[in-house]
């Protein structure tokens, strides 16, 4: 951490990347995206592991372990629940009991068969 300016540079560039990569998301995916991003900040688990691994007292160890549990819930639970949500989007096979429109009419028109 001798060079705060290097870290500041990484930070600022990451801000732009973070905005850029999701700028075209459709509202359909807002919920899974929020949930997925939520799981990514579960990476704090890495920090929790580090501080717990260097804990100097029993109190520090206990606090550290609590942080590890919380961070793991965030990370693991977050990714699993996001996957569960997305599974439902991808499983939309057109086999729902004959009622599925065979060929959807022109974009923008009504979806049901006339």
């Amino acid at each position, binding site marked *: 951490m001798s060079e705060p300016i290097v870290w500041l540079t990484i930070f600022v560039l990451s801000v732009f990347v973070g905005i850029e990569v999701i700028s075209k998301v459709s509202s359909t*995916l807002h919920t899974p*995206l929020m949930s997925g991003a939520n*799981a990514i900040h579960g990476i704090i688990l890495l*920090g929790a592991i580090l501080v717990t*691994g260097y*804990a100097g007292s029993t109190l520090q160890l206990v606090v550290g372990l609590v942080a590890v549990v919380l961070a793991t819930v965030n990370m693991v639970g977050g990714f699993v629940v996001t996957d569960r949500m997305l599974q439902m989007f991808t499983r939309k096979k057109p086999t729902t009991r004959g009622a599925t429109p065979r060929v959807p009419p022109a974009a923008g028109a009504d979806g*049901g068969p006339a």
Partner: protein
Amino acid sequence: MITETPVWVQLVYLAAAVLFILALKGLSSPKYARVGNLMGAVGATLACVVVFFYADLDNVVAILVAIAVGSVAGVVGAQRVQMTQMPQLVALFNGVGGGAAALVALLELADMTEPGHDPGGFALFATAFTVVVGSGAFSGSVVTFAKLQELMTSRPVLFPGLPVAFGLSLLAAVGLSALTVTGPSMLVGVVLGVLGLLIGVLLVLPVGGADVPIVISLLNAGTGLAVAASGYILANTVLLVGGTLVGASGTFLTLLMAGAMGRSVANILFGALKGGSTLGAGEASDRPVRSGGPEDIAILLGYAGKVIVVPGYGLAVAQAQHTLRELVDVLTERGTQVAYAIHPVAGRMPGHMNVLLAEAQVPYEQLKEMDDINGEFKQTDVVLVVGANDVVNPAAKTSPGAPIYGMPILNADEASQIVFMKRSMRPGFAGIENELLFDPKTTLLFGDAKDSLGKLLSAVKSL
């Protein structure tokens, strides 16, 4: 304090950071969303595993046990949750992440207070920031959870002096952060944590239930930034990049969501503080309405040329999405044109209704987004509103005092006939009355959505 990070580890961290970027990129396109999420999981796992191989850690067994406990809790929670309760769970996961970040920062602060350490003002500021924002995200998320789970009222909670208390807490947090920069102290650190908890609660209390999703997104971004700051404290690039990505994209997503509701973030957070005029009656009205039986409505639907279904959270609560799909199937077989109109904030979170209907295997082609279908209501014979209210409330267009004023709505009022399926005359989540219920074109069918839809289904079948 911490062993020097070897180059190969730095490279693994770089790979993890790239995976996070690809994950967010994937998550914003329908085709690659699942792969994206998987890449994020791989990146996070990689970064966390590598730490055990280079850092000279104590307490490894205890740490592994803690990870196992957290994993079981996370997986069980994620697998068991009903799709309708998804927003609460996301809020909860976000909250525990924020709490973890605050604890990590406090432990680092304990290290910094030992003699012989000079972390520098920048790192001390980052520590104070992480403690306040992390604990604020934690307590804010808990209140959010309580509101969505209906453990407490979902209406804005206001008490005299709330803005003052909020302002003072914020000021105190800034002051104590400045004090921390001049010299680290464990006591000040703990007080900062408590202030953070207070700020989180005071921030979320005045927010109305319908706006809570925006707050989840905002708190999510906050946790991201807290994690980024902890990355600086620990001199860890993957924490810095991962946290910043979530902080930036989360802030942007919050703005997008607020835009979909036609509101500003400031209005959502502080709108209720400006005065009582925005609060609705919140009670059942005794004005006359027209209600009908399942048979009347079956005739209405069965002989209609074009029907639009407006599903809302009430549908999901009743777990009636499957029955609804059956009804639509039968109507379609009779030759009626049917489409679902999905409001961007239908359900309790933007995009929530799409998840719920996808679960019921409603064909994707029948789901229409608001902008695509709003022009079609004029040529529609019957609009069937199932467990929705605020998203078709004309007050959003006509009464500037209403809390939802300015929110884009589905133009259900333009259809020839409107059928509301409701449990009672209670207003929607925003707590305001819906004029459309009293419209002469409107017929109400009272009862549990699943029950009513079942009766309606058999009535249509026997036409």
